[in-house]
């Protein structure tokens, strides 16, 4: 139960971070990506602050025996740099550039009730299901377990 509450709390803090930083607004994200136009460097500062905090916090976590509410750490275990990583990231980047939304901000914006935002989220979930179904068939496995590595 404690693990479920702490996960919910982390979700709220993550969402607050997206809202406070302005990253829940597609326009700010697209303007960051528009290096040769209306460039807004905000996203770079968001990334730098998030990285500094998580780098220091993860170093702290590495020194502890186990998480507070879980039996073991689920650190990512994948290290391969392969075609799916690069092709998948490129496809994601195209979609991100087209709309200015990645998964976190899309979910944080759900309560606005914007019909196009809701359509985007439904399409995003459909894209995930299509991918996982395709991979499951390709590898002849009944289910693709999400690796601890997956972000």
């Amino acid at each position, binding site marked *: 139960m404690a693990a479920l509450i702490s996960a919910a709390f982390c*979700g709220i803090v993550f969402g607050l*971070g997206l809202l406070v930083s302005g990253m829940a607004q597609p326009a700010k994200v697209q*303007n960051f990506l528009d290096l040769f136009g209306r460039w807004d460097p*905000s996203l770079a500062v968001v990334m730098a602050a998030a990285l500094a905090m998580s780098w220091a916090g993860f170093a702290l976590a590495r020194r502890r025996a186990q998480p507070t509410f*879980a039996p073991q750490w689920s650190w990512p275990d994948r290290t391969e740099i392969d075609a799916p990583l690069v092709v998948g990231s490129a496809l994601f*980047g195209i979609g991100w550039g087209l709309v200015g939304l990645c998964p976190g901000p899309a979910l944080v914006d759900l309560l*606005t009730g914007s019909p196009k935002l809701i359509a*985007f989220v439904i399409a995003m979930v459909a894209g995930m299901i299509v991918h996982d179904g395709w991979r499951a068939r390709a590898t002849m496995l009944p*289910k693709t377990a999400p690796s601890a590595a997956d*972000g």
Partner: protein
Amino acid sequence: MTTMFEPLSAAIGGALIGLSAVLLMLLNGRIAGISGIMAGCLPTTGGPRSWRITFLAGLVAAPIVALAAGTPLIVPAMPGSWGIVITGGLLVGFGTRMAGGCTSGHGVCGIARLSPRSIVATLTFMAAAIAVVFIARHVVGG
């Protein structure tokens, strides 16, 4: 639409995102990668769902807390074309699963762990997104 460079709110918001990633690791032992957490809730995947569902519920409910603290939820400016909205959503969903992560899992948590895999992923999606915005705004549009 022009937006302002707001370094202070960007730094505070970024620190909150990092804090969330640190707390989810320290408390639950999990990586705060939104696409992975979402996919872990789908019928196509296995693994525990309960913590993922409460994390996502917190994420979706965050605007209520923000509103109470005086930060309004701004209706997102979406593309005019429904085709672009749907195409973008499909690409984001498919691509993040194929790459095993998105802006949070690779861009924040992965780079914070100095993972070469996540650094390659982040440079790739940044470059693709910059190219798309360049084409949309300065080649096709303008």
